[in-house]
């Protein structure tokens, strides 16, 4: 299984998310995460998918099927490009008097924030790439995670791309 990051620019029509996820179900694609939100242009949204595919043929099929949707304007597999990819996670972790300070000690180097507090819990907000999020989750796990919510990755390509030799984005000419 290969993990791929795919972005799609879509017309912000009602049902467009349904169309895209329905397509994934119909064609048996395995989605890890989806994020959707507005872009700088009114009426146009951007979707970011993280999908697990078996081989190049499957990702090609996914890109082509997405492209066939009338409401989808542009599709790119940005996995192998220079990208900025971020995810946000909220983690509610058990925190008693003794562990409170320890948890704060973990939160700080990750540049995460404590955004809520109760008598026996702390809620941590962390932003970053998937690996960073995994790392902080693993560090907080021993304290007892009560609740965890992740947004999934949203991404786009960097302003400056190094000249890439193996550019495998959507093309019909193999």
């Amino acid at each position: 299984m290969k993990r791929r990051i795919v972005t799609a620019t879509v017309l912000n029509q009602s049902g467009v998310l349904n169309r895209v996820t329905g397509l994934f179900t119909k064609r048996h694609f395995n989605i890890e995460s989806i994020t959707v939100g507005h872009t700088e242009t009114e009426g146009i949204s951007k979707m970011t998918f993280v999908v697990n595919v078996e081989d190049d043929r499957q990702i090609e099929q996914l890109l082509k099927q997405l492209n066939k949707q009338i409401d989808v304007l542009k599709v790119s597999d940005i996995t192998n490009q220079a990208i900025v990819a971020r995810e946000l996670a909220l983690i509610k972790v058990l925190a008693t008097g003794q562990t409170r300070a320890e948890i704060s000690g973990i939160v700080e180097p990750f540049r995460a924030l404590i955004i809520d507090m109760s008598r026996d819990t702390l809620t941590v907000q962390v932003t970053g790439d998937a690996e960073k999020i995994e790392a902080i989750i693993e560090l907080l796990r021993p304290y007892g995670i009560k609740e965890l919510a992740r947004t999934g990755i949203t991404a786009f390509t960097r302003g400056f791309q190094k000249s890439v030799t193996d550019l495998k984005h959507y093309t019909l000419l193999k």
Partner: protein
Amino acid sequence: MKVKVKAEPEEQRLTGAETLIHALKQEKVEVVFGYPGGAVLPIYDALYRNPIRHVLARHEQGAIHAAEGYARVSGKPGVVLATSGPGATNLVTGITDAMMDSLPLVIFTGQVASGVIGTDAFQEADVTGITMPITKHNYQVRDLKDLPRIVKEAFHIASNGRPGPVLVDIPKDVSATAAEVNFGGKVHLPGFQPTKNPNVLQIKKLNEAIESAKKPVILAGAGILHAKASEQLRAVAESKNIPVVHTLLGLGGFPADHPLFLGMGGMHGCYAANMALYECDLLVNIGARFDDRLTGNLKTFAPEAVVAHIDVDPAEIGKNVETHIPIVGDAKAALQKLADEQGSSSMCEEWLVHLRQYQQEYPYWHKELEDVISPQKLISEIHSLTGGDAIVTTDVGQHQMWAAQYYTFNDPHKWVTSGGLGTMGFGFPAAIGAQIAEPDKRVVSIVGDGGFQMTSEELILLRELDLPVKIVIVNNGTLGMVRQWQESFYEQRYSHSVFNLQPDFVKLADSYGVRGFKVSTIEEAKALLSEVLNDDEPALIDCRVCAAENVYPMVAPGTGLHEMIGVKP
């Protein structure tokens, strides 16, 4: 593309229903296949006051299959109108069928009023949700002002690129209320820009491959018919001396009596065609989608071949079979460009001689039966009595395969069958649509006794509309193809595939005012058909055929095209 606003905007104050009728007339719609109901009352009222020809089917499924038959034969989008809830859900099989076989349809469904959508109102169903995976695109009209644009887009999407069904769901309040509507807008779909003209470099690459090939073969699918590219296909095959294999749905795209035609490929295709696909060193697929019934086991499909694939839908290229020369574009444009490429006639006489040996050695064969009608013989008789010139529609199953094998077509747009979805009940209503599209041509609906019972209620339309459709029921009293598989692969456990009781089809026809006949020997059949096929009255002929006949040859499931069984008596 910018929307230009004319100096005099075509604004009129109309209800949604009136707007729809106006927009349909703008699209030059000749006929609507439909069935009224509560949520489309305003539309039917507008239709009453401003008529377009409307064919009142007796079941929505009949309406949509008729629209498919109309679309297949005429090349124009079939238009369907049905009410909300059950009206719409009865269309689902036909929509899926059209999606699988790339037929252009524009379907209008009523919907409950906007204010009660989502409340499980009377006859409410989430039709856009239900049909999302089975339409090329669908819409729900939220604002009457959008309706003219949506109708235009729907027709544009349905008939451009790879054709397919588009559904427009119209809430009752939208069709009932009036507003200032403007018909002047142009289609603007940035997300739908199908590639028509193929890449010239790829065409050159294909031409080079043809030049160097020793064993080339063309696999031509229904894309040839959608693109109206029969002439171009013939020109390329002849000038480059390449034999042609058709898919089930492509039949008629290339003349069956042409020396370069090898026949149909696939599960019940002929041996020479399948062996050509297996042994070739260059496979040029034009407008076929490498369906599993065509390829057999993919692991042994065309193992030696360089694969070229011309398709207007890029997603079909490389989907099932790895493709070395992908060409996205319209089949006609691509074939024209390919024909323009000079000096590339491949020298493959040896290959053609080899394939002709297969053709002579392994033609279609069937048992000669004495007391009972041989279904294959029956189809051959229909072929000769109609001069091979009829429009033939079928259902799915044994009779369909026999029709494909023995009713050979020399011309395009005469073969109407349900391929991808394999829909029983398709053939007869499709014949109604085909006859409406081509009122002066002979339409023969070859159906099985099982499938015919699924949509036989449409018989009344033959009388009502005076359509001279000839229904030939290949009646073996069983679900033949199911029975055949049970015989071959389930140790003859005929579980629920043999009917214990059948209706009297002659009386059934009679009750609808259609002449019904029953024949039990081939002589009887011949005598009757030679009369009936040449008159201008509808007729139903119940042909009692041998129930034990199987369709051969066959690529058994899981095996490759070179492993056909039943290739000889």
